[in-house]
């Protein structure tokens, strides 16, 4: 698969903002998660120059979709005890890193870091995922997160809260209610 093919897949999978809101609140996991997982895995399979081409061509709306996916994968990975889902969530952050404001990305990394801690690998999950970065700046984004003080890595420090729902872990931002389907 080429970078152009991956970008076409991104256009097909990452739709408008209204659809993203529905995706955010969909059951964990959902068929859309599977579609985006295939997209992220295709990105990961590309060599670094192609990954950079893909990451640089995404729109702001598309990188927001990837952030939503990453957030969902943090929860799915814990519920299913799946390091692969966590890895794909981290890859989505890296895929989005060239367009995303690093401050926004840092918020999402706190959620993934919480999942990494619950799953067990902790820092090692971030270190392993860094190879999926499109360039050195993006790699530094993920590895740099590990150098934060412990209190500054928490989801609470970034404005999130964690709950235990009937289906498992739930992490939501601010005062938002957790989607009923979660």
């Amino acid at each position, binding site marked *: 698969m080429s970078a152009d093919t991956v970008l076409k897949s991104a256009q097909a999978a990452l739709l408008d903002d209204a659809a993203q809101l529905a995706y955010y609140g969909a059951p964990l996991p959902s068929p859309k998660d599977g579609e985006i997982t295939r997209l992220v895995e295709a990105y990961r399979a590309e060599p670094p120059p192609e990954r950079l081409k893909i990451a640089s061509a995404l729109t702001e709306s598309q990188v927001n979709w990837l952030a939503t996916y990453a957030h969902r994968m943090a929860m799915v990975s814990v519920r299913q005890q799946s390091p692969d889902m966590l890895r794909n969530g981290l890859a989505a952050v890296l895929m989005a890193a060239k367009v995303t404001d690093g*401050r926004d990305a840092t918020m999402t990394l706190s959620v993934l870091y919480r999942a990494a801690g619950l799953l067990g690998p902790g820092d090692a999950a971030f270190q392993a995922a860094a190879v999926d970065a499109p360039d050195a700046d993006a790699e530094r984004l993920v590895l740099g997160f590990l150098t934060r003080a412990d209190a500054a890595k928490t989801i609470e420090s970034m404005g999130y809260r964690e709950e235990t729902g009937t289906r498992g872990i739930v992490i939501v*931002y601010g005062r938002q209610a957790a989607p009923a389907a979660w």
Partner: protein
Amino acid sequence: MDALAAAPANPRNSALAKDVFDSAERAIAAPGAAAAITTYGSVDASSIPGVVASFGGPLGQPGAIPPQFAGREVTTVGRLPQTGPAGDAGERILRVPDNSWSPDLNALWMQDAANRGDVIKLATGVSNDASSLAGSPARGGVSVFTRELAVLQAAGYTRVGDYLVPPR
């Protein structure tokens, strides 16, 4: 990403980081700190139309800094990929080491600029279609840039050209 401070330590980055931390200390000691943190954290997608109404429009609009604000400190805000080059060119921006940024620090830095009556220079347009303002629903539906603008909106700022000016 355009890192918060992508380059290794250098005098420019160190000076900008010290400025940010000093700003936060001033803000904590002044009225409005708690309110700014609350405003910053509670912004969501429903806030976007109001932010667009206050500050909307692309960059490149006519209008200079009004004379009554001449000599004020000018602070540049926007999305990091746009503020980074402005900071490198000498403008006052938020730039701290990656591992030091936090939402509270960001809110306090913005509130300090409002407390001082800084003129704000936009490095990122405030798109009427909200593309520069919207964020992942998992992050409250807005970008960090929107949160900064919300703090300025609460402080009574208005847009003049590519600047946001304080109420007095």
